[in-house]
């Protein structure tokens, strides 16, 4: 099981306490009271509340949660579904695992409120196959909730029917893309769908569906309990609330930190995570999971919210912060990044299937000292032709980190080309 975070706030306040994982422990700390209140209100009111709170999706894209909920047809005349995206697979991200392992009922309460708000009779939680422990904990909580009448024919005695079905994935990054997830949920290869139609019109099993990330749902009971204004008082004006930053790489204290959005990256890396181990300096930091472009050491003053990160041509993504020390070879880092995307491309779109392969091939030959003079231009050209050209954002996610490395660490590449070998003798092993 994962350790509790180093810094806690409202989401993770009780995560060091094992009792919080049980229904009794959760209830003893006020659990399910927010849902009880919500089930007595008009669904449209709840959508409005979440909209007013300004909650943004925590799965990577940062789309407004209330707005997403409002896309669901009010009277569809057919079943509607809620889907929880628990396919956390973005390299550098491990927050949703903690949220499920340490606070399964907090998630279930968020799901119940969300389902009632959009009128869904059933919620599917799609969890990545490797998260066996989280799936076990969550299924245990689901069973407890059924036995206590929190789920089932009349959730919390409200007359609202709510079922939760947990499905385990089987190892495919692309199933974190919401329509790839829906395909997988339906028992198929997880190849993303063309949009439109969007899931709110044609989602799981062809029915109107809303898909939100695990952390997103976990914020919801707190918004219900304490109000939109309270939520907006945390974080920045445009990006309210806290989030779970996952810090990894060459830091003294890797781990999770629940902090307000807008916290400066330097504060997270140096004050909270203790800076780079062995007294070394930072070379670069990936701020939001591996798909997000890297920042060089002189840009760590940036505040961790999309409105500020966009100015630096990167994004918050899933809040996975990877810190690399001064010895790091950025071409090697790029070899690993491009291998991942080549390996995980679903193969539907030519630009992505072929492009990810070429990116990896070129990174590898540069690292081996066999790079060609025009390789950097070819990398830029391939990345530009992948961006915005495909069914889903995977190709963009493969192109962005390459563009980031070339933008800020071009001299690493040029050194490899000039010296015909990797000049970083003390870099991490490939």
């Amino acid at each position, binding site marked *: 099981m994962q350790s509790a975070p180093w810094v806690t706030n409202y989401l993770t306040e009780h995560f060091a306490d094992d009792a919080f994982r049980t229904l009794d422990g959760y209830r003893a700390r006020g659990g399910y009271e927010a849902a009880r209140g919500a089930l007595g209100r008009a669904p449209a009111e709840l959508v409005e509340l979440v909209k007013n709170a300004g909650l943004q999706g925590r799965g990577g894209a940062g789309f407004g949660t209330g707005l997403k909920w409002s896309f669901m047809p009010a009277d569809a005349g057919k079943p509607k579904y809620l889907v929880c995206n628990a396919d956390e697979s973005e390299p550098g991200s491990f927050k949703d695992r903690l949220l499920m392992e340490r606070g399964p009922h907090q998630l279930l309460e968020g799901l119940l409120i969300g389902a009632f708000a959009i009128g869904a009779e059933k919620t599917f939680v799609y969890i990545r196959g490797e998260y066996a422990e989280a799936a076990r904990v969550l299924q245990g909580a689901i069973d407890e909730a059924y036995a206590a009448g929190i789920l089932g024919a009349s959730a919390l005695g409200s007359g609202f029917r709510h079922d939760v079905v947990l499905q385990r994935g089987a190892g*495919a990054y692309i199933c974190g893309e919401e329509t790839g997830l829906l395909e997988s949920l339906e028992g198929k290869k997880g190849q993303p769908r063309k949009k439109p139609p969007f899931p709110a019109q044609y989602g799981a*099993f062809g029915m109107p569906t809303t898909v939100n990330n695990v952390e997103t749902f976990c914020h919801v009971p707190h918004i219900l309990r304490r109000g939109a204004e309270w939520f907006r008082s945390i974080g920045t004006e445009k990006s309210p609330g806290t989030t779970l930053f996952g810090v*990894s790489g060459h830091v003294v204290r890797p781990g999770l930190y629940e902090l307000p959005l807008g916290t400066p990256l330097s504060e997270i890396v140096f004050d909270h995570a203790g800076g780079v181990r062995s007294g070394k300096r930072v070379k670069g930091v990936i701020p939001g999971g591996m798909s997000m472009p890297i920042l060089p050491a002189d840009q760590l003053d940036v505040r961790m919210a999309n409105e500020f990160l966009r100015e630096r041509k990167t994004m918050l993504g899933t809040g996975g912060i990877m810190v690399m020390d001064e010895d790091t070879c950025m071409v090697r880092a790029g070899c690993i990044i491009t291998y991942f995307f080549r390996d995980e491309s679903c193969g539907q779109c030519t630009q992505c299937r072929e492009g990810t392969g070429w990116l990896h091939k070129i990174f590898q030959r540069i690292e081996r000292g066999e790079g060609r003079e025009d390789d950097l231009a070819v990398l830029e050209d391939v990345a530009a032709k992948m961006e915005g050209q495909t069914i889903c954002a995977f190709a963009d996610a493969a192109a962005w980190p390459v563009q980031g490395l070339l933008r800020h660490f071009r001299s690493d590449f040029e050194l490899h080309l000039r010296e015909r070998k990797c000049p970083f003798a003390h870099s991490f092993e490939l």
Partner: protein
Amino acid sequence: MVDALSAETRAKIDAEIAKYPKRRGALLPALHLAQAEEGWLPPAKVRALAEIFEIHPIEIQEVISFYNMFYDRPQGRHHVHVCTNLPCSLRGARGLLRALERHLGVRAGETTPDGRVTLGHEECLGACAYAPMLRVDDRYCEALDADAAKEIVDRLE
């Protein structure tokens, strides 16, 4: 044909099917259940599943081949996977994988001759702060050095 799956597995699959608006929604859960019997999905099980789901076996085969965690050939009794994505590699995962390759005498992707361990490397497993790490079957073993990893592997039966 359906005998390729035990009555118990068959009953669990039926219970999964009941949760979904369309039968096929339960295919991934069914594949997990069927695979749990022998650690892989031999053709006879695939044919049995095809009958249950009323689809052609090739449609199941293409699902199996799309996902990393479904196996269409026999595996070792235990899976030992080293996460080699960037956060783990920054903290020595590649060296750890090589140490296990030497220790077990197999390369990543291979099974020890006694059928005990299939060694592999995997993409990000969501344990980035506790690197390097192994997934041993359904268990995560985190923040390891080579010696600790070898000890874990040696304890597997």
